[in-house]
């Protein structure tokens, strides 16, 4: 389903993307925030600190910690004690959390974290790509990717609702592109407190750390039980597939904004070429696709909102009648020469009757800008591949040959 927005300029203000996300966190009434500042996440935690200093987040404790490892570790305890918990990080900070991310998911703690997507070192680079969150793919966190700052804010409330659902209880990352979304000023509706209160129930977990009723989280599991923990995590992700759709629909009913559930399909009906991508590149792609549509060309877009859980069914359904699929990835699995969305899209089409060529483009690494001309070049190649077959299955885009 295509996104629909009630655009009401009366309700909108022009603010920085980071501010609209920090504001969304505030109105979700967190009990514990723990974060360590790192570019380009910094403005979010600065704004939250300001809200705290101004007494605008009642019943919340903001923990100053000395590293991202501590930030996420503190939330393990807080969440297990029944607190609604939030953090934000990026890049090296997220990688430093890696070990604990498994613990959060394994203990089924619904921590919500904004990942302001940034490239990883070395070489050091502070700009946007998706390598940081994609590298945490298998930690058992829900991963949602936002197209614009409004969606990043709205997705924050949705993430709490999905993560804390008693049939899910899995942590969630809301991924927004560093600088491109975190530092852009554009009109948004700041989430209204009364509507969020209507949308998001209080966090009331069934199992909490409580001295009066002692229990342990994340204790020892020997070979006779460990497998079942993994199975139940996977099962919860299966439930999350439906809950992500539900959360988007309920959000639409209350707020009048919808961005798709697991995916958004844009112009996919009768589309010969379908482009797939995640994050802020979607806006540019929609503009390019509109320009082609006005010339009668059948090019569609599948925006993947949920990368984990991976919406195999929806993707297969969206791609089944296409003649050519192009997948854009702001990440690479080095040694496979493929981006993760490309690899997984191909994988989910195997063992089916869908027979469509899929080409992968790795794009926008380390913040390299993605102009319309680059998208046009990819579309030209897709048109040619539709006739003659795929020449190169997966490749880097806009490589500067003179530097090699």
């Amino acid at each position, binding site marked *: 389903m295509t996104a629909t927005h009630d655009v009401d300029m009366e309700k909108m203000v022009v603010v920085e993307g980071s501010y609209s996300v920090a504001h969304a966190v505030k109105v979700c009434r967190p009990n514990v925030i723990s974060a360590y500042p790192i570019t380009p996440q910094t403005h979010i935690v600065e704004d939250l600190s300001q809200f705290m200093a101004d007494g605008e987040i009642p019943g919340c404790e903001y923990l100053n910690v000395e590293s991202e490892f501590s930030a996420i570790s503190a939330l393990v305890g807080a969440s297990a004690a029944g607190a609604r918990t939030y953090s934000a990080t990026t890049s090296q900070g997220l990688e430093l959390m890696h070990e604990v991310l498994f613990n959060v998911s394994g203990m089924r703690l619904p921590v919500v974290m904004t990942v302001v997507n940034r490239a990883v070192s070395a070489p050091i680079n502070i700009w946007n790509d998706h390598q940081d969150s994609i590298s945490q793919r298998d930690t058992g966190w829900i991963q949602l990717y936002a197209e614009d700052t409004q969606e990043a804010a709205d997705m924050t409330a949705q993430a709490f609702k999905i993560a804390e659902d008693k049939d899910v209880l899995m942590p969630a990352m809301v991924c927004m592109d560093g600088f491109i979304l975190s530092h*852009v000023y554009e009109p948004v509706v700041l989430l209204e407190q009364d509507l969020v209160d209507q949308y998001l129930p209080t966090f009331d977990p069934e199992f909490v750390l409580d001295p009066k009723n002692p229990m342990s989280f994340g204790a020892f599991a020997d070979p006779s039980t460990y497998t079942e923990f993994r199975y139940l995590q996977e099962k919860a992700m299966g439930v999350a597939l439906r809950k992500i759709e539900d959360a988007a629909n309920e959000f639409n009913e209350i707020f009048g904004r919808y961005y798709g559930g697991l995916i958004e399909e844009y112009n996919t009906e009768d589309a010969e070429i379908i482009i797939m991508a995640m994050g802020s590149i979607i806006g*540019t792609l929609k503009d390019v696709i509109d320009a082609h549509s006005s010339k009668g060309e059948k090019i569609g877009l599948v925006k993947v909102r949920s990368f984990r859980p991976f919406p195999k069914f929806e993707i297969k359904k969206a791609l089944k009648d296409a003649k050519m699929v192009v997948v854009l990835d702001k990440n690479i699995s080095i040694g496979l020469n493929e981006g993760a969305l490309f690899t997984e899209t191909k994988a989910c089409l195997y063992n089916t009757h869908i027979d469509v060529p899929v080409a992968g483009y790795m794009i926008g690494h380390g913040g390299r800008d993605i102009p319309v001309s680059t998208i046009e070049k990819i579309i030209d190649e897709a048109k040619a591949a539709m006739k003659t077959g795929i020449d190169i299955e997966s490749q880097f885009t806009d490589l500067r040959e003179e530097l090699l």
Partner: protein
Amino acid sequence: MKEIRIHGRGGQGSVTAAELLAVAAFADGKFSQAFPAFGVERRGAPVQAFTRISDSTIRLRSQVYEPDYVIVQDPTLLEIVDVASGVKDEGIILINTEFAPETFKLDTKAKIITIDATRIALDVIGRPIVNTVLIGAFAGATGEIDPESIQNAVKERFPGKVGEKNAEAIQRAYEIMMGVKK
């Protein structure tokens, strides 16, 4: 859609200027978007910031390559940055300088307009901070934004006397530009 590229040096408030333009354009009833060309920010280094203004929602996220308008906060940038790059033929390049437009030999068909924003800033604000002066001049030179919306945006961002002084400087720059246009 109209696209604006601002050239400045780190510390001159180029990003702030882009943001204020976006806030003011939205107050005028248009959609807007402002963002920096994220460099490794340090004082004095050449920086760029962008603003887009449109009658409909803005989805495009790339940097601005073919601007309708360019604002140059520091004329010494002309020696090291191609400020005319990609500017539309019918576009405008607004330069902060004491010299006349004819002084500048840029490879462009766009119109060059100059204003001594540093002088205005020193006279009115008392400090050589030219970003607000230049967006006031932009309003006069292009007619894209109501100068009052810019003044309101500046007063909201910088409350009190600082905002008032900046608003006055914006008014002066706007009036000078309206005079130039006649």
